C-alpha cells in the first residue's frame, strides 16, 4: 500500500470524525478544537496533493489565526458550556441529516460520472515545476493579479466593518443610543457591558 494511500486512509477518518465531533459536542471550545484538528488533517491532504504552500497557509492562517480568533471570541463572550436546550425545531435535525445524506449521494453520483473512482491524478505534477510556492506565485501574479487586488479591498472592508461594529458599540451605552432605539420596547434594552447576569 503506497504511502499516500496510507496517509489518506489514516487522516480521512480523523477529519471526518473531528468534523462530526464538532457537530456533536456541547462545549463551543471543544468544538473549536475539533475544528482545528480537522484543519490540520486538511493541511496534511494538501501536502499529499502536492500543495505545500497551501499546507503552510492552512496551518498558519486557518488553524492558527482564524481559529485562534474564534477561540478568543468564545472566551470573550464567556459562552456557557451548553446546557442542552430543547430543540424547538422538531423537524430540523432529521431533515438536515436526510438532506445531507441525499446531498452526499448526489455528489457521489456526480463524481462517479464526472471523474470516476478509479481515475488517478497524473503521476507527475508538472505545474509545480520550479517549486510549488514559485509556481503559485507566478499564477497568482499574472493571471490572477486582479483578483488578488480585489482581495485587498475585501480585507480593507473587513477592517472597516470590524471598526464600524466595534466603534458603535463603544457608544452603545450613551443616552443617544437609547434615544435612537426609542421605537423599540424599552424592556428589551440591555446594558451593553457586563452586568453579568445573562437573560435566561
Amino acid at each position: 500500500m503506497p504511502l499516500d494511500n496510507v496517509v489518506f486512509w489514516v487522516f480521512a477518518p480523523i477529519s471526518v470524525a473531528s468534523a462530526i465531533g464538532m457537530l456533536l459536542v456541547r462545549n463551543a471550545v471543544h468544538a473549536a478544537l475539533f475544528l482545528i484538528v480537522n484543519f490540520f488533517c486538511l493541511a496534511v491532504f494538501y501536502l499529499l496533493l502536492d500543495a505545500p504552500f497551501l499546507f503552510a497557509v492552512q496551518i498558519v492562517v486557518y488553524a492558527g489565526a482564524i481559529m485562534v480568533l474564534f477561540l478568543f471570541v468564545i472566551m470573550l463572550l464567556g459562552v456557557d458550556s451548553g446546557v442542552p436546550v430543547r430543540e424547538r425545531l422538531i423537524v430540523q435535525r432529521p431533515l438536515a441529516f436526510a438532506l445531507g445524506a441525499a446531498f452526499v449521494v448526489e455528489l457521489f453520483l456526480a463524481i462517479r460520472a464526472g471523474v470516476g473512482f478509479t481515475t488517478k491524478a497524473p503521476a507527475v505534477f508538472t505545474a509545480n515545476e520550479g517549486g510549488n510556492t514559485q509556481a503559485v506565485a507566478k499564477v497568482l501574479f499574472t493571471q490572477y493579479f486582479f483578483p488578488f487586488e480585489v482581495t485587498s479591498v475585501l480585507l480593507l472592508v473587513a477592517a472597516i466593518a470590524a471598526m464600524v461594529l466595534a466603534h458603535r458599540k463603544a457608544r452603545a451605552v450613551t443616552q443617544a443610543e437609547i434615544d435612537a432605539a426609542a421605537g423599540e420596547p424599552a424592556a428589551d434594552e440591555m446594558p451593553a457591558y457586563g452586568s453579568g447576569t445573562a437573560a435566561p
Partner: protein
Amino acid sequence: MIPTPVIEFRPILPELLLCGFAIVGMLYEAFARRPDPVPHLAIASIGILAAAVAAFMLWDWTGAPYVLGDTVAVDRFSVVSRCVLLGAALIGCLYYTHYAARDPRSFLGEFYPLTLFATAGMTLITAANDLVVIFLALELLSLSLYVLTGITGRRSASEAAMKYFLLGAFSSAFFLYGVAMAYGAATSTKIVGVAAPGIVQALAGQTGSQALALLAMALLVVGFAFKVSAAPFHMWTPDVYEGAPTPVVAFMGAATKVAAFFALIRVFDVGLQPLTWDWTPVIYALAVVSILVGSVLAIAQRDIKRLLAYSSIAQAGFILTGLTAANSTGIRAAMFYLVAYAVVTLGAFGIVMLVSARGEEQTSLDAYAGLARRSPGLAALMTVFLLSLAGIPPTAGFIAKVTVFTAAIGAGNWPLAVIGVVASVVAAYFYLRVIVYMYMREPAEGMASDDGLLPRIAAGVLATGIVVLGVFPGILTGILEPASIVRW
C-alpha cells in the same frame, strides 16, 4: 521570473474610482474633527459620478473584450449594469444623508465608504469574466452589506445583520463549491477564455466533464438565487428588509438584485450556454416558486417593508421568467425589468423612509392610512411605484412584464407566463391594499411624514422615470438592444 502582466486599467476604472473615493471618505471620517454628512455625501457623489463617467466611456470600447488576464469583460452589458448600480448607490447615499440628518447622533460616516465598496463589488460582479472574481466581488458586496444592514445598531438591525450574514456565508459556501466544481469540470474558472479555453469553450468542446458542470450549475444557482432572493432561497429577505435601515434597504434591494442578476446572466447565458437545456428548467422552477411565494405570502403582510420584500421575491421570479428564454430577447427583457425594478425599489423605499417620521421607523401599513390626505405628493408617488410593481400601464412595470412574458412565451414557456399573470393578479391585491390605505382610509392620529426635500425630489425623478419608461420604453430598449448581446 514572472512576466509582467499587461495591465489595462480603464475597464476597471469605475471600480478603482469607487474604491479610491471610499478610501477618501474613510480618511475624512478618520481625520475630520466632527464628520458631517454633507462632505461625505459630496465625496461619495463625486466618486459615483466619476465612476459613471468612466463607465460611460466604456460604451464604445474598441480594445480587447477581455482584459486583466481574461478576468474582466468589457462590454456594453456591464456598462448598463454599472450605470444602474451607480445610480442606486447615489440615491442610497442621498437617502442616508437625509435619514441620518433626522438623528445626527446615530450618524455613521462609514456608511458612504461601505456603500462605495459595495457598489464596487456589484459593478465588478457584473463585469467579471472569471468565477473567482465573481466570488470575490460577491463577498465584497456581501460583507459591505452585512455591515450596512447592522449599521444603526438598533436591535432589529443587528438581528437582520446576523441573519443576513449567517445565511449569506452559508450560501456563498455553496457558491464557492460550485466554483470548485466548475473548475473541476473545465480546468478553468474563466467564463470565456482567450488565452486558454474557458468554461464555455471546455463545455462546448466536450473537453470538460458534463457531470461536474451540472453539479457546478446546481451549486452556482444556489448562490445566485440566494442573492436575488428567489424562493426557496429567499427566506432572509423579509427579515432583513424589515430590520435594516430603510436607506440601506433601498440601495440593497435595488442594487443587489441587479448585480446578482447581471452576473447570473453572464454565467449562465454565456458560461453555461452549452448546458442551456439543463439549466433552463431550474430557472423555470425557481421562477414559478418565487412568483407564487412572493405574490401569495405578501398578502398577509402588515409591514410595508416586509410587503415590499415579498414583492421583490415575486419580482425576482418575473425576471427569472424572462431568463428561461435563454436568448437575447430574454436577456433584454430581464435587463429592462431590472432597470425598472431598481428604479421602483429605490423610489418606493424612499417613500417608506419619508413616511416614517423623523427618527422612527413607522413601517406598519397603518402609517399609510390617509397618506393622500396628509401628504398627497408622497401618496401619488407611492401609487406610481406600486402600480409599476403591479404591472399596470402606463408604468415601466407594465412594459417590463410584457417583455419578460414575451420572452418566455417566445421560448415556448407559456405555462410559466400564465402562472406569472395569474400571480400578478394576486399581487395586485396587496399593492391595491396599500393604495386603499393611502387613499381610502382616514389618517391615524399623530402621524407625521417627513418633509425632506432632497429625497422627495429623488423619488419624484424616479417616479417620472417610471412613467416615462412606461410611455416611451423605446428610450431604454434602444440602449439595451446593443447591450444585451453578451459577447462570447
